[in-house]
């Protein structure tokens, strides 16, 4: 089991997803609507496919919501 810290919570994976795009697929998150940070570095949407993941990374998945 490997762990990623996603949005402040530890998530356990039998097999670590290879890329950020794979992770979003696995989590059923529509990549078109989110922005991501890996270990504090912003990853642009165009780079989701190429962004490799490794164990214990901190990943933030962010989206626009209603706000004032």
């Amino acid at each position: 089991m490997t762990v990623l810290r996603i949005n402040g919570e530890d998530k356990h994976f039998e097999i670590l997803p290879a890329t950020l795009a794979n992770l979003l697929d696995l989590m059923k998150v529509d990549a078109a609507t989110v922005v991501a940070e890996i270990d504090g570095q912003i990853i642009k949407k165009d780079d989701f496919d190429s962004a490799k993941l490794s164990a214990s990374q901190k990943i933030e998945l962010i989206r626009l919501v209603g706000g004032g």
Partner: protein
Amino acid sequence: MNDKLIIAGKEFDSRLFIGTGKFASNKIMADAIEASGTQMVTVALRRVDIENPNDNMLAAIDRKKYLLLPNTSGARNADEAVRLARLARAATGITWLKLEVTPDPYYLLPDPVETLKAAEILVKEGFVVLPYINADPVLAKKLQDAGVATVMPLASPIGSNQGLKTKSAIEIIIAQATVPVIVDAGLGMPSHAAEAMEMGADAVLVNTAIAAAKNPVQMADAFKKAVQAGRQAFLAGGAEVKQQADASSPLTGFLRE
């Protein structure tokens, strides 16, 4: 009449900006935005809810008609605000930003020092910064000097609907302003928005008063008209306020002996 509001070189016909929080549904939000006649709406950034990842309010907003203005709500200091600003730009390609830094979760009032610090950083990074501030004329001037695109003084605490409690300070801010003054937070009824516009505010931002009205769509239309009314009254030049009465009917020609 050509009376455009210009912010950072961009022209607006509508002087009412709308916040998108707290609506009961995306459909009501979209209808209220439409009714308001606005051309720019604020949005927040939050973590994706992993249990429910596909609730996408953005789909309800026609981005051809409405500019998005991401905010940094939730930021408690300059660092958090800068981080959110960069994420917002990465997410949307938008460089416009409503800068909010609110350390206190109870009153949600803005931090003058951290807001100025964040504004200075973000202006240098090329953001068009619209900072939400207390009605503090000195701070407003410092932010102007730092290159912000507008100042957004609060009327009363966010979501309180108390109306224009900071009137005398906002009058000073307007008198000194070299950038548009957008009155934000606490405007609870259309008359409050009209009053702000009559004083010479350039625009207002409204969220809770519309989203939490019993009929948000009708309220949005009411705010639209009130903002137009207030702006026109400002341009039309109000009649003088007098301590005594001044007869509206003639004071001669009375039917007397």
